[in-house]
């Protein structure tokens, strides 16, 4: 890997994610923790990646930066053609709203809202009308096989069902990148297989999927893999290999 300095070339048009020399340093007391220490890679549109590594490898920091929840200390992060590294909080929020879909380990559905309302949340912030939201939520629920539970509360669903709803919500803004953080971490093996099947389907339909996981058998579903260790890239397994 070539570590490039600050401003790099604009990414190619089919590069949906591109990191150039991304670092993330925290100051804890008098010590500087280098959670990410110069990471560069790019991902093509429609690819299926896994980001692996043991705990403390910088995986979570990577996820936060990829998810526009955190900014790199230095380096550039191009997401869908725009450099996110220098954006302010509002611009970052807008970027998440337009370009990213999150699937979390513990589902993170809003407990007071029904399945349909949970799926509608991103559309609400995007400014869709109520009828559009309803219609689109039905389509998305159908797509993840949850259209029979639209009026239910998350507490009335099983873990696998909740994760399906979460996937539907992540798709509600038609994101450039679907970011999944240990999506099967709280599920039994049968349900895990079903959920991974869902990601496979989405990949086949042309979505860019990034899985962050420490489980090799989950990472195996992806078509390419980045392994992190101590804040740097240990290895990159490219597509088709």
């Amino acid at each position, binding site marked *: 890997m070539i570590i490039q300095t600050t401003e790099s070339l604009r990414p190619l048009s089919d590069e949906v994610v591109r990191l150039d020399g991304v670092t993330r340093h925290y100051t804890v007391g008098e010590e500087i923790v280098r959670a990410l220490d110069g990471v560069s890679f790019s991902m093509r549109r429609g690819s299926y990646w896994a980001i692996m590594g043991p705990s403390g490898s910088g995986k979570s920091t990577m996820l*936060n930066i990829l*998810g526009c*929840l*955190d900014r790199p200390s230095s380096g550039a992060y191009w997401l869908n053609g725009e450099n996110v590294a220098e954006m302010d*909080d*509002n611009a970052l*929020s*807008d*970027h*998440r*709203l*337009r370009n*990213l879909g*999150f699937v*979390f380990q513990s589902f*993170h*559905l*809003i*407990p*007071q*809202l029904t399945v349909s*309302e949970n799926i*509608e*949340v*991103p559309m*609400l*912030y995007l*400014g869709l*009308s*109520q009828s559009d939201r309803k219609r689109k939520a039905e389509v998305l629920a159908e797509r993840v096989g949850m259209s029979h539970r639209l009026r239910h509360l998350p507490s009335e669903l099983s873990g696998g069902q909740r994760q399906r709803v979460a996937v539907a*919500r992540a798709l509600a*803004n038609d994101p450039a990148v679907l970011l999944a953080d240990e999506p099967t971490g709280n599920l039994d093996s049968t349900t895990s297989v079903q959920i991974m099947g869902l990601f496979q389907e989405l990949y086949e339909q042309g979505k860019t999927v990034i899985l962050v996981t420490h489980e090799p058998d989950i990472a195996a579903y992806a078509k390419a893999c980045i392994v992190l260790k101590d804040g740097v890239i240990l290895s990159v397994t490219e597509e088709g290999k």
Partner: protein
Amino acid sequence: MNQVRYFWPFIKLGLSDVWRHKTRSLLTMLGMVFGVGSVIAMLAVGEGASQQALDSIKRLGSENIMVMSVKPTEDEGTSTGAQRGRLAVYGLLYEDEKRILETVPGVVITVPARMTRRNARLNERQLEMRVVETIPGWFEVVQRPILAGRVLTANDMQMRANVCVLTEHGVRRLLAAEEMIGQRIRIASGVFEVIGIVKNETGGTVRAPDSEADAYIPITTGTKLFGEANIRYSAGGMEGEKVELSQIIVKMSNTAAVEPGSKAIEAVLARFHKKKDFRIDVPLTLLREAERTKRTYNIVLGAIAGISLLVGGIGIMNIMLASVTERTKEIGIRRAIGARRSRIVVQFLINTCVLSIGGGLLGLLLGVGIPFLITAFTDMPTVVQPYSLALAFGISVGVGIVFGLYPAMRAAALDPIEALRHE
């Protein structure tokens, strides 16, 4: 429209939140309930009092000063059997009227009046009326609509005519439906032709110069017929009093002249009256008193309202801060999905407003109920204004925004990564 579409899900969320924590929400709202309730009640009481004050002006005329004859107190105290038969002489004189007119600046007109209670009779009907011997100026100072005929004129005065003007209520009681103008009625020893009927003020708490059953006659006629002494015969003998004038109404050029005028009149009369046998009533003072009362009510109720709203607002703020902690994860989720900080602020402000408006609506019910009870138990008039509804709503929204801002900012300031990790 777009905004409503955006806000509605959050209003719904706020409502369901209130519903889920019914007891907590109700207790939180209590401060608002009392605050808004007392604001509405205050306005109702205030409005009632000011309408009452307005009535007082109408009844008495704010430019008038009423000077009345009063029986000196020491006379009453020593009114023993031995002194029976004595003719008590006291009160205002024509001289006094002349002095007031000549020495007090700003006087437009003075109206003397002598009032006695006498029996009036028409055919078989009898009624004790208050006979007011006065001059045509009375009708200028005590302005009442003329229902029929005419009022007294200077000519009646000169001719010492046996004519009288009756008040509406007196007429009704003497003769229900018949045409009254031109009829002759007997008042004590005299026969009078009814020349006019005027409307009279009824009810009210401030005493008006006119009463229900009045007969107005020229003062010259009165002097000729009845004299100036009013003598009552009773079992023990005779009891009488001589009062030249029962009352002088002094009309000033404007309200500003009223208070200095009343002081000047007091000074002029005091010089010639050794005993305190007169009283000065200033309607304007009564009006001021009514306004003072109203102001006192407003201050007391306003303070209650202010404190309740403050306490209510702090209570709501407290609950909202708890709610922010409770919903930290939800905030993290919303931020991760792409909600800007401002959207989180709006969401929590709406939530606070749902609470405060809920309290405000309950307070409105209370605020309509309190004046109702006040009127029922104290016969103080109250008027609940229609705009109270809008005001209650406005206050509620205001309190919601003021006290919701801090919790909302706290919610929005949360770091999304930290918030998502929160359990």
